[in-house]
C-alpha cells in the first residue's frame, strides 16, 4: 500500500516546518553570538568572539553559574538517595501506604510548577526557613524526585526478586545485598536519572523564581537580564549553555534509551 506522493510531500513539509520552529529559537542566538550587535542590528561583516570575552567579565553571570551547579548537584544527590530509598521500599511489597506515598511523590510533577513553587514559598514562610540556596535545592529536589524515583523503580522491577533472594540465601546481609547485588544493577539507571535530573534542575525557572531569596541561578539571572534589555553577552552565554545541554542530553540518552532502539542502530 503506497501513500499518495502529495500526502508524503505535505507530511514532509509540516515536519520540516516543525523542525524549523523548534530549532530556530535555539540556533539564532548561537549564530548571533559570533557577531557584533549594535543598536539592535547584527553586523554580519566579521565573526568574532567579543561577546565571549565580555561574558568572562560579567561577575553576576559567573556567580549564577556557580549557584546553578551547586543547586543542580545537590538536588541530584538528594533526589537519587531519596528516590532509591523510596523505590526500594515501594518495590518491597504492596500496601495502601505505599500507593499513597507514590501519589505524593508524583504530585509536584503533575501539578503546574507555579503550584509547587507557591506552596513551598508559603510553607517556608510559616516554618520560618529563610529563602536561600537551601530552599532552591529543596524545591528542585521535590520537582525532579518523581522522575528519578520512576526510573529507579522501573529498573528494580526489571531486576526481580530472585536475585535478591539468592543473595540472602548465600548468607549476605542486607547492606551486602544492597552494595554488591542491587547497586551494580542499578548503576546505569542512577546515572541516567541523575543526568536527566541535573538537566531539569539546570533549566528550572518557575519554582526557582518563587523560592529564591537573593541568590540567582542561571535561568533567573537570564530572566532578569532579558527583562532589562539586551546585552550581547547573553547570546554568548546562550551558546555555551546550549552546548553544555547537548552534551548532557547525549550522555543521558546513552544510559536511558532502551537496548532495542540501540540495537536498531547497529
Amino acid at each position, binding site marked *: *500500500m503506497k501513500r499518495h506522493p502529495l500526502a508524503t510531500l505535505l507530511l514532509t513539509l509540516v515536519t520540516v516546518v516543525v523542525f524549523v520552529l523548534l530549532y530556530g529559537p535555539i540556533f*539564532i542566538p548561537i549564530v548571533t553570538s559570533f557577531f557584533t550587535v549594535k543598536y539592535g542590528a547584527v553586523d554580519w561583516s566579521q565573526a568574532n568572539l567579543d561577546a565571549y570575552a565580555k561574558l568572562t567579565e560579567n561577575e553576576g553571570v559567573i556567580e549564577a553559574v556557580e549557584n546553578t551547579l551547586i543547586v543542580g548537584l545537590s538536588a541530584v544527590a538528594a533526589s537519587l538517595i531519596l528516590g532509591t530509598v523510596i523505590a526500594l521500599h515501594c518495590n518491597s511489597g504492596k500496601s495502601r501506604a505505599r500507593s499513597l506515598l507514590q501519589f505524593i511523590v508524583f504530585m509536584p510533577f503533575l501539578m503546574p510548577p507555579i503550584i509547587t513553587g507557591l506552596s513551598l514559598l508559603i510553607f517556608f514562610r510559616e516554618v520560618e526557613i529563610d529563602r536561600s540556596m537551601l530552599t532552591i535545592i529543596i524545591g528542585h529536589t521535590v520537582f525532579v524526585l518523581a522522575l528519578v524515583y520512576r526510573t529507579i523503580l522501573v529498573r528494580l522491577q526489571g531486576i526481580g526478586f530472585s536475585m535478591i533472594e539468592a543473595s540472602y540465601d548465600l548468607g549476605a546481609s542486607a547492606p551486602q545485598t544492597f552494595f554488591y547485588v542491587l547497586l551494580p544493577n542499578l548503576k546505569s539507571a542512577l546515572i541516567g536519572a541523575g543526568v536527566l535530573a541535573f538537566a531539569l534542575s539546570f533549566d528550572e525557572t518557575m519554582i526557582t523564581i518563587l523560592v529564591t531569596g537573593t541568590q540567582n541561578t542561571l535561568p533567573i539571572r537570564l530572566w532578569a537580564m532579558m527583562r532589562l534589555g539586551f546585552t550581547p553577552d547573553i547570546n554568548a552565554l546562550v551558546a555555551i549553555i546550549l552546548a553544555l545541554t547537548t552534551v548532557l542530553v547525549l550522555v543521558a540518552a546513552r544510559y536511558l534509551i532502551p537496548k532495542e532502539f540501540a540495537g536498531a542502530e547497529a
Partner: protein
Amino acid sequence: MTADRIWHRLAVTAAYGLPVFFILLPLCGFLLYSLFWVQGTELHYDLTLVNYRRFFTEEIYIPVLRQTIVLCLEVAMLCIGFGYPVAYFLSSLKGRKKYTLLMLLLVPLLMSYIIKMYAIRSILGGNGFLNRTLIALGLIDQPLTFFVFNLNAVLLTLSVLLLPFAILPIFLSLERIPKNLLEASADLGGSNRQTFFRVILPLSLPGVISAAAFVFVLAIGDFLTPQMVGGQSGFTFGRVIYSQFGTAFNWPFGAALSVILVALVIVAIAVGTRFGGERARVR
C-alpha cells in the same frame, strides 16, 4: 542484625517523612492559606471564604480565567494540528531513522526555556526577524503588529515551546496500532483515505486527547511566558496569581486563585486519563 534494623527503620521513616513534610504538608498549608485573609499588610489567621467570594463577585477575574482557558485550548489545538502530521510521518518511517528523528524532536525540551522564549520574542517583535523577512520579501510594507506583545504572541510562543509534548503521546498511540489492521483495511478494499479516517484516526484519538491534556496543563500553569511576550494586554490567570505574591501582596487571595487553577488542572488530567491513552510520563 540490630544495626541493620535501625538503618531500615530510619530509611523507611525518611521515605515517608521527607515527601510528607516537603510535598504534602506545603500543599495542605496552601489550601489552608486560601481561607485566611489580609488587611493592609497584616495577615489574619482565621478561616473565611472571602477570597473565593472575591473571585466570583469581582468583575475582572472570571473573564481573565475564561480568556486564559480559551488561550490554552487554542495552544493545545495548534500543537495537535502541527504535532499530528509530524507524529504520523515519524511513525511511518522505519528503524533507526524513526527514533533518531524522535530524539531530535524531544531534545529542544531540555534546552533552556527562558532562552527559547527570548529568541521567539526577538523573532516575533515589531523589528524582529519575521517582520523584516516579510518586508524584505515585499509582502508587507509596515511591520505587522498583531503578534507583538499581546495574547497572539503568547499563543504562538507557548505553542512552539510545548509542541514536543504533543508529538510524543500521539506518536506512541500511532505506534500501538497493529499493522495487520491496516492490511485488513486494504484487503477489504479500503482506500488510503478510508483507512486513515476509519482506522488510524479513531485508534490514535486517545493519544490526541492525552496530548491535548498535557499541553493544556503546561500552558495554563505558565506565568513567565505571558509576562515575557504578552505585554500589557496579554494578561493571563497565571500572571494574576503571580502578581498577588509580588506587587499586590495578597498571599491568601493568590492561594485561593491557585486552588481554582488546581481544580482546573485536575479536571484536565482527569479528562486526559479517562479518555486518553496510556499516561505518557515524560518531562
